[in-house]
Protein backbone atom coordinates (compact mmCIF):
# COMPACT_ATOMS: atom_id res chain seq x y z
CA UNK A 1 0.00 0.00 0.00
CA UNK A 2 1.40 3.38 -0.95
CA UNK A 3 1.97 6.22 1.46
CA UNK A 4 -0.88 8.22 -0.12
CA UNK A 5 -3.36 5.42 0.39
CA UNK A 6 -2.31 5.00 4.00
CA UNK A 7 -2.54 8.75 4.67
CA UNK A 8 -5.92 9.15 2.96
CA UNK A 9 -7.20 6.17 4.86
CA UNK A 10 -5.89 7.60 8.12
CA UNK A 11 -7.50 10.96 7.39
CA UNK A 12 -10.84 9.40 6.59
CA UNK A 13 -10.78 7.19 9.65
CA UNK A 14 -9.53 9.79 12.09
CA UNK A 15 -12.13 10.52 14.64
CA UNK A 16 -10.41 13.79 15.28
CA UNK A 17 -8.02 15.46 12.87
CA UNK A 18 -5.95 16.70 15.76
CA UNK A 19 -5.18 13.11 16.56
CA UNK A 20 -3.86 12.42 13.09
CA UNK A 21 -0.57 10.62 13.15
CA UNK A 22 2.41 12.90 12.59
CA UNK A 23 3.74 10.76 9.77
CA UNK A 24 0.48 11.05 7.85
CA UNK A 25 0.28 14.77 8.60
CA UNK A 26 3.80 15.19 7.26
CA UNK A 27 2.93 13.23 4.13
CA UNK A 28 -0.19 15.35 3.57
CA UNK A 29 1.92 18.46 3.85
CA UNK A 30 4.11 17.28 1.00
CA UNK A 31 1.49 15.44 -1.10
CA UNK A 32 -0.97 17.65 -3.00
CA UNK A 33 -3.69 15.05 -3.26
CA UNK A 34 -3.50 14.02 0.35
CA UNK A 35 -3.15 17.66 1.37
CA UNK A 36 -6.34 18.53 -0.51
CA UNK A 37 -8.20 15.75 1.22
CA UNK A 38 -6.93 16.84 4.60
CA UNK A 39 -7.87 20.41 3.80
CA UNK A 40 -11.43 19.39 2.93
CA UNK A 41 -11.75 17.57 6.19
CA UNK A 42 -10.43 20.63 8.00
CA UNK A 43 -12.95 22.79 6.17
CA UNK A 44 -15.64 20.42 7.25
CA UNK A 45 -14.35 20.58 10.78
CA UNK A 46 -14.54 24.37 10.73
CA UNK A 47 -18.09 24.29 9.42
CA UNK A 48 -19.05 21.80 12.07
CA UNK A 49 -17.52 23.87 14.84
CA UNK A 50 -19.34 26.92 13.60
CA UNK A 51 -22.55 24.98 13.53
CA UNK A 52 -21.95 23.93 17.10
CA UNK A 53 -21.35 27.51 18.16
CA UNK A 54 -24.53 28.66 16.47
CA UNK A 55 -26.50 26.03 18.26
CA UNK A 56 -24.92 26.99 21.54
CA UNK A 57 -25.98 30.59 21.10
CA UNK A 58 -29.59 29.70 20.67
CA UNK A 59 -30.27 30.39 24.32
CA UNK A 60 -31.48 28.47 27.30
CA UNK A 61 -34.83 27.32 28.46
CA UNK A 62 -36.86 30.08 30.02
CA UNK A 63 -38.90 29.91 33.22
CA UNK A 64 -41.94 29.66 31.00
CA UNK A 65 -40.51 26.48 29.56
CA UNK A 66 -40.34 25.04 33.05
CA UNK A 67 -43.99 25.93 33.59
CA UNK A 68 -44.88 24.32 30.30
CA UNK A 69 -42.95 21.21 31.22
CA UNK A 70 -44.72 20.91 34.56
CA UNK A 71 -48.05 21.36 32.83
CA UNK A 72 -47.06 18.77 30.29
CA UNK A 73 -46.12 16.36 33.04
CA UNK A 74 -49.43 16.86 34.77
CA UNK A 75 -51.23 16.48 31.49
CA UNK A 76 -49.12 13.46 30.62
CA UNK A 77 -49.99 11.80 33.88
CA UNK A 78 -53.64 12.34 33.15
CA UNK A 79 -53.21 11.11 29.60
CA UNK A 80 -51.63 7.91 30.82
CA UNK A 81 -54.81 6.93 32.56
CA UNK A 82 -57.19 6.56 29.67
CA UNK A 83 -58.15 3.12 30.97
CA UNK A 84 -59.50 4.76 34.10
CA UNK A 85 -61.65 7.13 32.14
CA UNK A 86 -62.75 4.28 29.92
CA UNK A 87 -63.62 2.15 32.91
CA UNK A 88 -65.57 4.95 34.52
CA UNK A 89 -67.45 5.72 31.35
CA UNK A 90 -68.21 2.06 30.82
CA UNK A 91 -69.39 1.64 34.39
CA UNK A 92 -71.56 4.72 34.14
CA UNK A 93 -73.04 3.51 30.89
CA UNK A 94 -73.69 0.08 32.34
CA UNK A 95 -75.33 1.60 35.39
CA UNK A 96 -77.50 3.77 33.18
CA UNK A 97 -78.54 0.76 31.12
CA UNK A 98 -79.40 -1.20 34.24
CA UNK A 99 -81.44 1.65 35.64
CA UNK A 100 -83.18 2.18 32.34
CA UNK A 101 -83.93 -1.53 32.08
CA UNK A 102 -85.33 -1.58 35.59
CA UNK A 103 -87.52 1.40 34.82
CA UNK A 104 -88.76 -0.19 31.63
CA UNK A 105 -89.42 -3.44 33.40
CA UNK A 106 -91.25 -1.64 36.14
CA UNK A 107 -93.38 0.23 33.68
CA UNK A 108 -94.13 -2.74 31.49
CA UNK A 109 -94.80 -5.02 34.41
CA UNK A 110 -98.01 -3.22 35.15
CA UNK A 111 -99.05 -4.16 38.64
CA UNK A 112 -95.73 -5.83 39.26
CA UNK A 113 -93.82 -2.67 38.68
CA UNK A 114 -96.34 -0.52 40.44
CA UNK A 115 -96.44 -2.83 43.38
CA UNK A 116 -92.67 -2.97 43.57
CA UNK A 117 -92.48 0.76 43.50
CA UNK A 118 -95.17 0.89 46.10
CA UNK A 119 -93.27 -1.50 48.26
CA UNK A 120 -90.12 0.50 47.92
CA UNK A 121 -91.89 3.72 48.72
CA UNK A 122 -94.06 2.50 51.48
CA UNK A 123 -91.86 -0.08 53.03
CA UNK A 124 -92.31 -0.13 56.73
CA UNK A 125 -89.66 0.51 59.30
CA UNK A 126 -87.93 -2.82 59.68
CA UNK A 127 -87.28 -2.33 63.37
CA UNK A 128 -90.90 -2.12 64.38
CA UNK A 129 -92.86 -5.36 64.29
CA UNK A 130 -96.03 -4.81 62.44
CA UNK A 131 -98.88 -6.47 60.71
CA UNK A 132 -99.17 -6.59 57.01
CA UNK A 133 -102.50 -7.18 55.47
CA UNK A 134 -102.02 -9.03 52.27
CA UNK A 135 -104.67 -7.66 50.05
CA UNK A 136 -105.40 -8.52 46.49
CA UNK A 137 -104.03 -6.00 44.09
CA UNK A 138 -106.37 -3.75 42.20
CA UNK A 139 -107.74 -5.33 39.12
CA UNK A 140 -105.18 -4.95 36.38
CA UNK A 141 -106.08 -3.56 33.05
CA UNK A 142 -105.47 -6.79 31.21
CA UNK A 143 -105.12 -10.29 32.49
CA UNK A 144 -105.11 -10.65 36.24
CA UNK A 145 -101.77 -11.45 37.72
CA UNK A 146 -101.20 -14.19 40.26
CA UNK A 147 -101.55 -13.00 43.77
CA UNK A 148 -98.05 -13.38 44.88
CA UNK A 149 -96.28 -11.45 47.57
CA UNK A 150 -92.61 -11.12 46.84
CA UNK A 151 -90.45 -10.62 49.84
CA UNK A 152 -86.79 -10.45 50.34
CA UNK A 153 -84.44 -9.71 53.14
CA UNK A 154 -84.19 -5.97 53.15
CA UNK A 155 -84.08 -5.97 49.40
CA UNK A 156 -86.34 -5.25 46.53
CA UNK A 157 -89.95 -5.98 47.13
CA UNK A 158 -91.74 -6.28 50.42
CA UNK A 159 -89.39 -5.83 53.31
CA UNK A 160 -90.16 -8.42 55.91
CA UNK A 161 -88.70 -8.09 59.35
CA UNK A 162 -88.78 -10.31 62.38
CA UNK A 163 -92.00 -9.87 64.24
CA UNK A 164 -94.05 -8.93 61.23
CA UNK A 165 -97.35 -10.69 60.88
CA UNK A 166 -98.50 -11.56 57.42
CA UNK A 167 -102.21 -12.02 57.19
CA UNK A 168 -103.99 -13.20 54.11
CA UNK A 169 -107.30 -11.62 53.44
CA UNK A 170 -110.21 -13.48 52.11
CA UNK A 171 -108.07 -15.30 49.60
CA UNK A 172 -104.86 -17.28 49.81
CA UNK A 173 -101.64 -15.43 49.21
CA UNK A 174 -98.25 -16.73 48.22
CA UNK A 175 -95.01 -15.23 49.33
CA UNK A 176 -92.02 -15.64 47.08
CA UNK A 177 -89.12 -15.69 49.46
CA UNK A 178 -85.70 -15.00 47.99
CA UNK A 179 -86.73 -16.52 44.70
CA UNK A 180 -86.44 -20.00 46.16
CA UNK A 181 -89.21 -20.59 48.64
CA UNK A 182 -92.92 -20.12 48.25
CA UNK A 183 -95.03 -19.64 51.33
CA UNK A 184 -98.76 -19.78 50.70
CA UNK A 185 -100.89 -18.35 53.42
CA UNK A 186 -104.42 -19.67 53.26
CA UNK A 187 -107.39 -17.38 53.34
CA UNK A 188 -108.14 -15.91 56.74
CA UNK A 189 -104.77 -17.14 58.00
CA UNK A 190 -101.90 -15.26 59.58
CA UNK A 191 -98.20 -16.00 59.92
CA UNK A 192 -95.71 -14.29 62.18
CA UNK A 193 -92.20 -13.87 60.90
CA UNK A 194 -89.58 -15.15 63.31
CA UNK A 195 -86.59 -14.97 60.98
CA UNK A 196 -86.56 -13.77 57.42
CA UNK A 197 -83.07 -14.13 56.10
CA UNK A 198 -81.73 -15.75 53.04
CA UNK A 199 -80.06 -18.41 55.14
CA UNK A 200 -82.79 -18.84 57.69
CA UNK A 201 -86.48 -18.47 57.31
CA UNK A 202 -88.67 -19.16 60.33
CA UNK A 203 -92.39 -18.56 60.49
CA UNK A 204 -94.98 -19.05 63.15
CA UNK A 205 -98.51 -19.90 62.27
CA UNK A 206 -100.70 -17.51 64.21
CA UNK A 207 -103.87 -18.84 62.79
CA UNK A 208 -105.06 -20.77 59.86
CA UNK A 209 -102.90 -22.66 57.45
CA UNK A 210 -99.67 -22.14 55.63
CA UNK A 211 -98.19 -24.26 52.88
CA UNK A 212 -94.51 -24.02 52.19
CA UNK A 213 -92.73 -25.02 49.01
CA UNK A 214 -89.15 -25.04 50.04
CA UNK A 215 -86.21 -25.40 47.77
CA UNK A 216 -83.25 -26.06 49.95
CA UNK A 217 -80.88 -26.64 47.12
CA UNK A 218 -78.28 -24.72 49.02
CA UNK A 219 -78.47 -27.33 51.75
CA UNK A 220 -77.43 -25.01 54.50
CA UNK A 221 -80.58 -22.97 54.58
CA UNK A 222 -82.91 -23.29 57.50
CA UNK A 223 -86.61 -23.16 56.95
CA UNK A 224 -88.94 -23.85 59.79
CA UNK A 225 -92.49 -23.17 60.69
CA UNK A 226 -93.74 -23.10 64.23
CA UNK A 227 -97.21 -23.62 65.40
CA UNK A 228 -97.65 -23.20 69.07
CA UNK A 229 -94.86 -25.20 70.54
CA UNK A 230 -94.56 -27.34 67.47
CA UNK A 231 -91.68 -26.61 65.17
CA UNK A 232 -91.65 -27.99 61.69
CA UNK A 233 -88.16 -28.14 60.35
CA UNK A 234 -87.98 -28.36 56.62
CA UNK A 235 -85.70 -30.84 55.02
CA UNK A 236 -86.59 -29.91 51.50
CA UNK A 237 -90.15 -30.38 50.62
CA UNK A 238 -93.64 -29.06 50.27
CA UNK A 239 -95.66 -29.18 53.40
CA UNK A 240 -98.59 -27.57 55.11
CA UNK A 241 -98.90 -26.47 58.70
CA UNK A 242 -102.35 -25.68 59.94
CA UNK A 243 -103.58 -24.56 63.29
CA UNK A 244 -107.13 -24.72 64.42
CA UNK A 245 -108.90 -22.53 66.91
CA UNK A 246 -108.19 -24.96 69.71
CA UNK A 247 -104.45 -24.67 69.11
CA UNK A 248 -103.96 -28.08 67.60
CA UNK A 249 -101.46 -28.29 64.78
CA UNK A 250 -101.74 -30.42 61.71
CA UNK A 251 -98.75 -31.02 59.52
CA UNK A 252 -99.16 -32.53 56.09
CA UNK A 253 -96.27 -33.25 53.77
CA UNK A 254 -96.85 -33.17 50.04
CA UNK A 255 -93.30 -33.83 48.93
CA UNK A 256 -90.10 -34.70 50.70
CA UNK A 257 -90.16 -34.86 54.43
CA UNK A 258 -90.09 -32.66 57.47
CA UNK A 259 -89.01 -33.03 61.04
CA UNK A 260 -91.58 -32.11 63.62
CA UNK A 261 -90.36 -31.16 67.07
CA UNK A 262 -93.10 -31.10 69.64
CA UNK A 263 -93.10 -29.16 72.84
CA UNK A 264 -91.80 -32.18 74.63
CA UNK A 265 -88.68 -32.08 72.50
CA UNK A 266 -89.47 -35.26 70.70
CA UNK A 267 -88.93 -35.09 67.00
CA UNK A 268 -90.55 -37.15 64.38
CA UNK A 269 -90.08 -37.17 60.68
CA UNK A 270 -93.02 -37.01 58.36
CA UNK A 271 -92.57 -38.19 54.83
CA UNK A 272 -94.45 -37.28 51.71
CA UNK A 273 -98.10 -38.24 51.83
CA UNK A 274 -98.12 -38.41 55.59
CA UNK A 275 -99.70 -36.01 58.01
CA UNK A 276 -99.79 -35.64 61.74
CA UNK A 277 -102.01 -33.71 64.10
CA UNK A 278 -100.67 -32.52 67.40
CA UNK A 279 -102.87 -31.19 70.11
CA UNK A 280 -101.89 -28.08 71.95
CA UNK A 281 -100.21 -28.65 75.24
CA UNK A 282 -101.75 -27.23 78.34
CA UNK A 283 -99.02 -24.65 78.74
CA UNK A 284 -99.33 -23.52 75.20
CA UNK A 285 -103.05 -23.31 75.46
CA UNK A 286 -102.66 -21.16 78.53
CA UNK A 287 -100.21 -18.88 76.72
CA UNK A 288 -102.55 -18.63 73.79
CA UNK A 289 -105.38 -17.74 76.09
CA UNK A 290 -103.40 -14.93 77.63
CA UNK A 291 -102.31 -13.44 74.41
CA UNK A 292 -104.64 -10.82 73.09
CA UNK A 293 -105.50 -10.84 69.46
CA UNK A 294 -102.12 -11.43 67.92
CA UNK A 295 -102.96 -9.91 64.68
CA UNK A 296 -103.60 -6.27 64.36
CA UNK A 297 -104.96 -5.24 61.08
CA UNK A 298 -103.01 -2.65 59.22
CA UNK A 299 -104.56 -0.16 56.85
CA UNK A 300 -105.84 -1.77 53.75
CA UNK A 301 -103.80 -1.60 50.63
CA UNK A 302 -100.46 -1.65 52.36
CA UNK A 303 -97.53 -3.61 50.98
CA UNK A 304 -99.26 -5.49 48.27
CA UNK A 305 -97.00 -6.89 45.63
CA UNK A 306 -97.85 -9.08 42.75
CA UNK A 307 -95.30 -10.84 40.67
CA UNK A 308 -95.18 -13.77 38.36
CA UNK A 309 -94.31 -16.99 40.05
CA UNK A 310 -91.18 -18.53 38.58
CA UNK A 311 -91.29 -22.23 38.04
CA UNK A 312 -89.40 -23.89 40.79
CA UNK A 313 -87.85 -27.28 40.53
CA UNK A 314 -87.41 -29.16 43.69
CA UNK A 315 -83.99 -30.45 44.29
CA UNK A 316 -84.13 -34.12 43.42
CA UNK A 317 -82.01 -34.98 46.37
CA UNK A 318 -84.05 -32.95 48.77
CA UNK A 319 -86.05 -35.94 49.89
CA UNK A 320 -82.82 -37.60 50.91
CA UNK A 321 -81.73 -34.80 53.19
CA UNK A 322 -80.92 -36.25 56.57
CA UNK A 323 -81.64 -34.76 59.92
CA UNK A 324 -78.13 -33.60 60.51
CA UNK A 325 -76.52 -32.53 63.70
CA UNK A 326 -76.30 -29.07 62.24
CA UNK A 327 -80.03 -28.88 61.79
CA UNK A 328 -80.62 -30.26 65.27
CA UNK A 329 -78.20 -27.78 66.69
CA UNK A 330 -80.00 -24.94 65.01
CA UNK A 331 -83.36 -26.21 66.18
CA UNK A 332 -82.15 -26.25 69.73
CA UNK A 333 -80.69 -22.80 69.42
CA UNK A 334 -84.00 -21.61 68.09
CA UNK A 335 -85.76 -23.07 71.06
CA UNK A 336 -83.32 -21.35 73.38
CA UNK A 337 -83.71 -18.10 71.56
CA UNK A 338 -87.45 -18.44 71.98
CA UNK A 339 -86.87 -18.67 75.71
CA UNK A 340 -88.14 -22.22 76.03
CA UNK A 341 -85.18 -23.83 77.70
CA UNK A 342 -87.11 -26.79 78.90
CA UNK A 343 -88.14 -27.60 75.38
CA UNK A 344 -84.62 -26.95 74.24
CA UNK A 345 -83.16 -29.46 76.67
CA UNK A 346 -85.67 -32.04 75.65
CA UNK A 347 -85.05 -31.26 72.04
CA UNK A 348 -81.39 -31.64 72.65
CA UNK A 349 -81.79 -35.14 73.96
CA UNK A 350 -84.16 -36.00 71.15
CA UNK A 351 -81.85 -34.49 68.58
CA UNK A 352 -78.86 -36.37 69.88
CA UNK A 353 -80.87 -39.53 69.72
CA UNK A 354 -82.06 -38.73 66.25
CA UNK A 355 -78.71 -37.81 64.91
CA UNK A 356 -76.54 -40.64 66.01
CA UNK A 357 -75.16 -41.03 62.55
CA UNK A 358 -74.00 -37.46 62.69
CA UNK A 359 -73.80 -36.58 66.34
CA UNK A 360 -73.66 -33.10 67.64
CA UNK A 361 -70.15 -32.28 68.77
CA UNK A 362 -69.68 -32.72 72.48
CA UNK A 363 -68.47 -29.18 72.76
CA UNK A 364 -71.64 -27.87 71.23
CA UNK A 365 -73.74 -29.95 73.62
CA UNK A 366 -71.81 -28.60 76.56
CA UNK A 367 -72.28 -25.06 75.37
CA UNK A 368 -75.98 -25.61 74.92
CA UNK A 369 -76.39 -27.06 78.36
CA UNK A 370 -74.46 -24.21 79.87
CA UNK A 371 -76.56 -21.76 77.95
CA UNK A 372 -79.78 -23.30 79.19
CA UNK A 373 -78.66 -23.08 82.78
Amino acid sequence: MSACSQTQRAIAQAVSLSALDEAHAAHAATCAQCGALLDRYRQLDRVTRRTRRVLETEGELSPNDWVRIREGIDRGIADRRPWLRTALVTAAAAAAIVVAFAIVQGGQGSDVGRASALALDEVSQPTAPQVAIVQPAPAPDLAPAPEILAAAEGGVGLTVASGDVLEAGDAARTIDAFGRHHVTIAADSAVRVIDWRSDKLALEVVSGEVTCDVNRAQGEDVFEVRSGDVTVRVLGTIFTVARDDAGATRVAVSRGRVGVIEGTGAMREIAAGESVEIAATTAQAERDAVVEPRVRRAPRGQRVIQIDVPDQQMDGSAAEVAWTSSLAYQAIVSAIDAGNCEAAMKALDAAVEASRRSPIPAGAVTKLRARCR
Partner: protein
Amino acid sequence: MVATYQETSDRPLASILSRTKTVIADDDAAANVLAFDTVYREQRGRVLATVRSVLGASDEIEDVVQLVFIEIHRCLPRFEGRSKLSTWIYRIAVNVALQHLRKKKRHRWLTLGLTGDEDQRQTSGRNLTAQLEDREILEEVYASVDKLSQKKRVVWVLHELQGLDPQQIADILDIPMNTVRSRLLSARRDVMADLTRRRVVPEREAT
Protein backbone atom coordinates in the same frame (compact mmCIF):
# COMPACT_ATOMS: atom_id res chain seq x y z
CA MET B 1 -41.49 9.41 55.32
CA VAL B 2 -37.93 10.55 55.38
CA ALA B 3 -36.41 10.28 51.95
CA THR B 4 -33.08 8.57 52.32
CA TYR B 5 -30.85 7.58 49.50
CA GLN B 6 -27.57 5.80 49.25
CA GLU B 7 -24.90 8.33 48.55
CA THR B 8 -22.42 6.89 46.15
CA SER B 9 -20.04 9.14 44.33
CA ASP B 10 -19.92 7.08 41.19
CA ARG B 11 -23.67 7.15 40.82
CA PRO B 12 -24.63 10.59 39.60
CA LEU B 13 -28.28 10.28 40.41
CA ALA B 14 -27.54 9.12 43.91
CA SER B 15 -25.27 12.08 44.27
CA ILE B 16 -28.00 14.39 43.15
CA LEU B 17 -30.62 12.77 45.28
CA SER B 18 -28.34 12.84 48.28
CA ARG B 19 -28.81 16.56 48.40
CA THR B 20 -32.44 16.04 49.21
CA LYS B 21 -31.98 13.28 51.70
CA THR B 22 -32.54 15.56 54.65
CA VAL B 23 -35.85 16.68 53.27
CA ILE B 24 -38.76 15.07 54.95
CA ALA B 25 -41.13 14.09 52.23
CA ASP B 26 -44.66 13.05 52.83
CA ASP B 27 -44.44 10.21 50.42
CA ASP B 28 -42.49 8.77 47.56
CA ALA B 29 -44.18 11.09 45.11
CA ALA B 30 -42.85 14.11 46.93
CA ALA B 31 -39.37 12.63 46.91
CA ASN B 32 -39.69 12.04 43.19
CA VAL B 33 -40.68 15.63 42.63
CA LEU B 34 -37.64 16.80 44.52
CA ALA B 35 -35.41 14.52 42.49
CA PHE B 36 -36.98 15.59 39.24
CA ASP B 37 -36.58 19.25 40.01
CA THR B 38 -32.93 18.68 40.67
CA VAL B 39 -32.50 16.72 37.48
CA TYR B 40 -34.20 19.45 35.53
CA ARG B 41 -32.02 22.17 36.97
CA GLU B 42 -28.85 20.31 36.20
CA GLN B 43 -29.72 18.62 32.94
CA ARG B 44 -31.92 21.05 31.10
CA GLY B 45 -29.00 22.51 29.18
CA ARG B 46 -27.90 19.08 28.05
CA VAL B 47 -31.39 18.10 27.04
CA LEU B 48 -31.95 21.30 25.13
CA ALA B 49 -28.63 21.05 23.34
CA THR B 50 -29.17 17.42 22.43
CA VAL B 51 -32.65 18.00 21.11
CA ARG B 52 -31.54 21.06 19.25
CA SER B 53 -28.58 19.31 17.70
CA VAL B 54 -30.64 16.34 16.62
CA LEU B 55 -33.52 18.36 15.27
CA GLY B 56 -31.68 21.46 14.29
CA ALA B 57 -33.28 24.73 15.21
CA SER B 58 -37.00 24.65 14.91
CA ASP B 59 -40.06 26.06 16.53
CA GLU B 60 -40.79 22.65 17.95
CA ILE B 61 -37.68 22.29 20.04
CA GLU B 62 -39.38 23.41 23.21
CA ASP B 63 -42.18 20.95 22.58
CA VAL B 64 -39.73 18.11 22.19
CA VAL B 65 -37.80 19.19 25.26
CA GLN B 66 -41.07 19.09 27.11
CA LEU B 67 -41.66 15.56 25.90
CA VAL B 68 -38.17 14.59 26.98
CA PHE B 69 -38.71 15.85 30.50
CA ILE B 70 -42.10 14.21 30.68
CA GLU B 71 -40.40 10.97 29.81
CA ILE B 72 -37.66 11.62 32.32
CA HIS B 73 -40.26 12.33 34.97
CA ARG B 74 -42.02 9.10 34.14
CA CYS B 75 -38.90 6.97 34.15
CA LEU B 76 -36.94 8.64 36.93
CA PRO B 77 -38.40 6.50 39.74
CA ARG B 78 -37.15 3.44 37.88
CA PHE B 79 -33.68 4.76 37.24
CA GLU B 80 -31.36 2.45 39.11
CA GLY B 81 -28.09 4.20 38.54
CA ARG B 82 -26.60 1.43 36.45
CA SER B 83 -25.42 4.02 33.97
CA LYS B 84 -24.44 7.64 34.37
CA LEU B 85 -27.31 10.01 34.70
CA SER B 86 -26.01 12.05 31.77
CA THR B 87 -25.91 8.95 29.59
CA TRP B 88 -29.43 8.10 30.62
CA ILE B 89 -30.59 11.65 29.89
CA TYR B 90 -28.86 11.64 26.52
CA ARG B 91 -30.51 8.38 25.62
CA ILE B 92 -33.97 9.64 26.42
CA ALA B 93 -33.40 12.93 24.66
CA VAL B 94 -32.07 11.26 21.53
CA ASN B 95 -34.85 8.73 21.40
CA VAL B 96 -37.58 11.30 21.90
CA ALA B 97 -36.04 13.61 19.33
CA LEU B 98 -35.70 10.85 16.78
CA GLN B 99 -39.23 9.77 17.44
CA HIS B 100 -40.32 13.31 16.80
CA LEU B 101 -38.37 13.35 13.57
CA ARG B 102 -39.97 10.16 12.42
CA LYS B 103 -43.39 11.57 13.13
CA LYS B 104 -42.84 14.85 11.47
CA LYS B 105 -40.56 13.97 8.60
CA ARG B 106 -40.34 17.49 7.51
CA HIS B 107 -37.68 20.05 7.10
CA ARG B 108 -36.74 22.55 9.70
CA TRP B 109 -35.18 25.95 9.65
CA LEU B 110 -38.29 27.59 8.41
CA THR B 111 -38.78 29.71 11.46
CA LEU B 112 -35.36 29.92 12.96
CA GLY B 113 -34.98 33.29 14.61
CA LEU B 114 -38.20 34.59 13.15
CA THR B 115 -40.62 33.99 15.95
CA GLY B 116 -40.86 36.09 19.05
CA ASP B 117 -39.21 33.71 21.47
CA GLU B 118 -36.42 32.97 19.10
CA ASP B 119 -35.82 36.64 18.48
CA GLN B 120 -35.56 37.27 22.19
CA ARG B 121 -32.99 34.57 22.55
CA GLN B 122 -30.59 35.92 20.03
CA THR B 123 -27.36 37.09 21.50
CA SER B 124 -27.55 40.82 21.69
CA GLY B 125 -23.97 41.44 20.64
CA ARG B 126 -24.29 39.87 17.22
CA ASN B 127 -25.51 41.78 14.23
CA LEU B 128 -28.17 40.62 11.86
CA THR B 129 -25.73 39.80 9.07
CA ALA B 130 -23.75 37.44 11.23
CA GLN B 131 -26.95 35.78 12.34
CA LEU B 132 -28.04 35.30 8.77
CA GLU B 133 -24.66 33.81 7.87
CA ASP B 134 -24.86 31.45 10.80
CA ARG B 135 -28.36 30.49 9.80
CA GLU B 136 -27.20 29.81 6.30
CA ILE B 137 -24.44 27.55 7.55
CA LEU B 138 -26.86 25.72 9.75
CA GLU B 139 -29.28 25.22 6.92
CA GLU B 140 -26.56 23.88 4.68
CA VAL B 141 -25.19 21.53 7.27
CA TYR B 142 -28.54 20.17 8.27
CA ALA B 143 -29.55 19.86 4.67
CA SER B 144 -26.75 17.33 4.45
CA VAL B 145 -27.50 15.79 7.82
CA ASP B 146 -31.08 15.25 6.75
CA LYS B 147 -29.82 12.95 4.06
CA LEU B 148 -28.18 10.67 6.55
CA SER B 149 -29.89 7.71 8.03
CA GLN B 150 -31.06 8.21 11.58
CA LYS B 151 -28.38 5.90 12.91
CA LYS B 152 -25.62 7.87 11.24
CA ARG B 153 -27.29 11.14 12.08
CA VAL B 154 -27.38 10.50 15.79
CA VAL B 155 -23.77 9.42 15.93
CA TRP B 156 -22.61 12.38 13.87
CA VAL B 157 -24.65 14.85 15.90
CA LEU B 158 -23.50 13.53 19.24
CA HIS B 159 -19.89 13.53 18.20
CA GLU B 160 -19.59 16.63 16.04
CA LEU B 161 -22.10 18.89 17.71
CA GLN B 162 -22.24 17.58 21.25
CA GLY B 163 -18.57 16.73 21.49
CA LEU B 164 -19.04 13.25 22.85
CA ASP B 165 -16.36 10.67 22.27
CA PRO B 166 -17.20 7.35 20.66
CA GLN B 167 -17.25 5.50 23.94
CA GLN B 168 -19.85 7.84 25.39
CA ILE B 169 -21.94 7.52 22.28
CA ALA B 170 -21.66 3.77 22.47
CA ASP B 171 -22.95 3.89 26.04
CA ILE B 172 -25.81 6.16 25.13
CA LEU B 173 -26.92 4.18 22.13
CA ASP B 174 -25.98 0.87 23.70
CA ILE B 175 -24.04 -0.26 20.66
CA PRO B 176 -20.42 -1.37 20.22
CA MET B 177 -17.85 1.37 19.95
CA ASN B 178 -16.61 0.06 16.62
CA THR B 179 -20.10 0.49 15.29
CA VAL B 180 -20.04 4.05 16.49
CA ARG B 181 -16.73 4.67 14.75
CA SER B 182 -17.97 3.09 11.58
CA ARG B 183 -21.16 5.14 11.53
CA LEU B 184 -19.31 8.27 12.44
CA LEU B 185 -16.76 7.99 9.66
CA SER B 186 -19.40 7.04 7.18
CA ALA B 187 -21.58 9.95 8.21
CA ARG B 188 -18.67 12.32 8.02
CA ARG B 189 -17.80 11.18 4.51
CA ASP B 190 -21.38 11.55 3.42
CA VAL B 191 -21.75 15.00 4.93
CA MET B 192 -18.49 16.18 3.49
CA ALA B 193 -19.32 14.82 0.08
CA ASP B 194 -22.67 16.53 0.11
CA LEU B 195 -21.31 19.82 1.40
CA THR B 196 -18.51 19.69 -1.14
CA ARG B 197 -20.94 19.02 -3.91
CA ARG B 198 -22.95 22.05 -2.87
CA ARG B 199 -19.71 23.99 -2.46
CA VAL B 200 -20.27 24.73 1.18
CA VAL B 201 -16.92 23.13 1.76
CA PRO B 202 -14.45 24.40 -0.83
CA GLU B 203 -12.90 21.71 -2.91
CA ARG B 204 -9.37 22.82 -3.45
CA GLU B 205 -7.78 21.50 -6.51
CA ALA B 206 -4.68 19.53 -5.97
CA THR B 207 -1.64 21.42 -6.87
